[in-house]
């Protein structure tokens, strides 16, 4: 499952996204940095409102501007030949990246597909647009793609409309669109949240297969730590618009270093646990994003919070091999850390 790190294809640095609303400024993403290696699967985990989706949409310049505004940061994309900052690209240039270099699967396939176009047209559109195929070639390739994502009777289904498919099948269509141009990166934004568990298992299985076949790097956004365990090489945990912990998947589950990650893992009942224990709940509620972060965003809910946590924002700090955490407290040894 875990691929050896080869070369970095995406390097996001200090990404900051704000939304100006009537009620004030929403501090959605506050200085997020991460890298993505070729062919690896990075899971981005967090609760609603933690900024995981906005981070990915910002990279592709897909947040509506205004009210949104990317106030800081870079997203360096290496396509083997050159390095481009995705955030600095013009509208027409970024359009060639979307769909062509970076594919995206959304959470809700019903609202993401156009209800009045056949799914065949929606898939072949990007083939004609980005790959310069003729309509006939695109039709042929579309049927192949539908086959590839496990659509039974692909030839016939080409002419069907989205409402004629079930949720799982629609998600397969979305995946076919996302991989149509053989992108380098596939962003999956909670692709299984709207689906039942047995269908979720099918989709997770399909994406892992495609990843291995096509060698595409996957960014899997989710709130489900279960799905992450099976599919990811590395995990990045977000809270209040910041990355609070980043580690290899085994390391994160065995030695969670951030109190939030630790709490999240404790809040999950285990299916294979014979004794029933009381769930560890994280008291309180997620942070108010209208307030500009001036200290650790988790301090409100953290049982370990001390003075320093209320005074400055912790930065990611190396605590082990490829393991970084943004916390002033060392939960394993029960004392504050020496963080510069």
């Amino acid at each position: 499952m875990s691929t050896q790190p080869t070369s970095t294809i995406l390097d996001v640095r200090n990404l900051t996204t704000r939304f100006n609303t009537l009620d004030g400024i929403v501090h959605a993403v506050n200085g997020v940095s991460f890298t993505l290696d070729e062919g690896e699967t990075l899971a981005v985990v967090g609760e609603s409102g933690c900024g995981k989706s906005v981070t990915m949409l910002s990279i592709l310049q897909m947040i509506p501007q205004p009210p949104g505004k990317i106030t800081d940061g870079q997203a360096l994309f290496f396509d083997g030949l050159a390095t481009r900052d995705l955030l600095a690209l013009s509208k027409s240039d970024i359009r060639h990246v979307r769909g062509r270099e970076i594919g995206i699967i959304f959470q809700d396939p019903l609202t993401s597909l156009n209800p009045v176009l056949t799914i065949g047209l929606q898939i072949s559109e990007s083939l004609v647009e980005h790959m310069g195929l003729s309509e006939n070639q695109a039709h042929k390739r579309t049927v192949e793609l539908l086959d590839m994502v496990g659509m039974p009777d692909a030839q016939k289904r080409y002419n069907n409309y989205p409402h004629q498919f079930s949720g799982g099948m629609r998600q397969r269509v979305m995946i076919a669109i996302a991989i149509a141009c053989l992108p380098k990166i596939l962003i999956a934004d909670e692709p299984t949240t709207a689906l039942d568990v047995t269908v979720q298992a099918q989709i997770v299985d399909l994406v892992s297969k495609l990843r291995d076949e096509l060698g595409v790097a996957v960014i899997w956004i989710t709130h489900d730590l279960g799905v992450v365990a099976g599919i990811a090489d590395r995990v990045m945990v977000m809270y209040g618009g910041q990355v609070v912990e980043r580690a290899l998947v085994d390391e994160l589950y065995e030695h969670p270093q951030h109190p939030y990650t630790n709490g999240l893992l404790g809040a999950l009942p285990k299916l294979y646990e014979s004794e029933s224990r009381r769930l560890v709940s994280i008291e309180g509620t997620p942070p108010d994003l209208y307030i500009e972060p001036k200290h650790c965003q988790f301090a409100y809910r953290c049982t370990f919070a001390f003075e320093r946590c209320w005074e400055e924002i912790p930065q990611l700090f190396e605590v082990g091999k490829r393991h970084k955490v943004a916390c002033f407290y060392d939960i394993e040894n029960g004392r504050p850390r020496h963080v510069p």
Partner: protein
Amino acid sequence: MSHDGRVLVRVEKLKKHFPITRGFLISRQVGAVKAVDGVSFDIHEGETLGLVGESGCGKSTTGRAILQLHKPTAGRVFFEDIDLTSLKAEELRVLRPKMQMIFQDPYSSLNPRHTVLKIVGEPMVINGYGDNHKIKERVYDLLDMVGLKRMHANRFPHEFSGGQRQRIGIARALALNPRFIVCDEPISALDVSIQAQVVNLLEDLQKELGLTYLFIAHDLSMVRHISHRVAVMYLGKVVELADRQTLFEDPLHPYTQALISAVPVPDPKIERQRIQIILEGEVPSPANPPSGCVFSTRCPLVKDICSQVEPEYREARPDHYVSCHLVDSDLGSSKIIS
């Protein structure tokens, strides 16, 4: 945990079919969605019965039909040995305070124009609990009980987060001292860290007040955590029912096995090693269920008999009910992975 308490709710061959009609002025029935198609089970006093299944399997409809929020098409529901299906609306109203419901969506199940005081107090006003002062005191007590503050009483639902709203819904359900509560996916709309808060609250309240729950959910790990016994539904039927431990460790029905297997385990080491059963296809339409066994179209072990004869729902082991032809038969094992 009491499995031996006496039976509080008995469901017998409960059916709920929704008619499909055609025509505008003169409408005629052309079919029926068999949302619930003959389910039977008991719920003992003080226990939590988990009801799991995928969307559209009829688990919520079952919960509502038990409370007579949907008039059942056939079958009977006994609550404290009284047949609810035979009661008139007036007679039912007297019993209603004892059976309450917590809804899935804490956003749409609270009236946005009412304060928390009014929302939680309304059941008491309707049932003549007492004067305004007495109701107010009781609302304060309830807010304490569910972990909200008294000052919250004068606020409106939009001022609360999802988890807090669900607490308001729980306070409302508790207002009339019920014995039985149908929890219809009470945590599905909440974030993981908040889910644990609500589940812990429900467990505490059960211990304190001796409540009986029917806990409807699609999250198997949460159902395993909170339930004493678990029933698995598929396409309007209960396919298996057993106590928690037995059901998760020795599932007999192939669907239960697949369902449990489909749940991702939050542990990378286990997750990489375990063999997952991935079912083909999707749940058929309840308007046109397959003949024979409802699961026959997706079952990896399907035999000829499965698509012809409907399997009987029987007690295959002590207190372990299942409806599958393959269990204890000479057709082969009912285990997908032996």
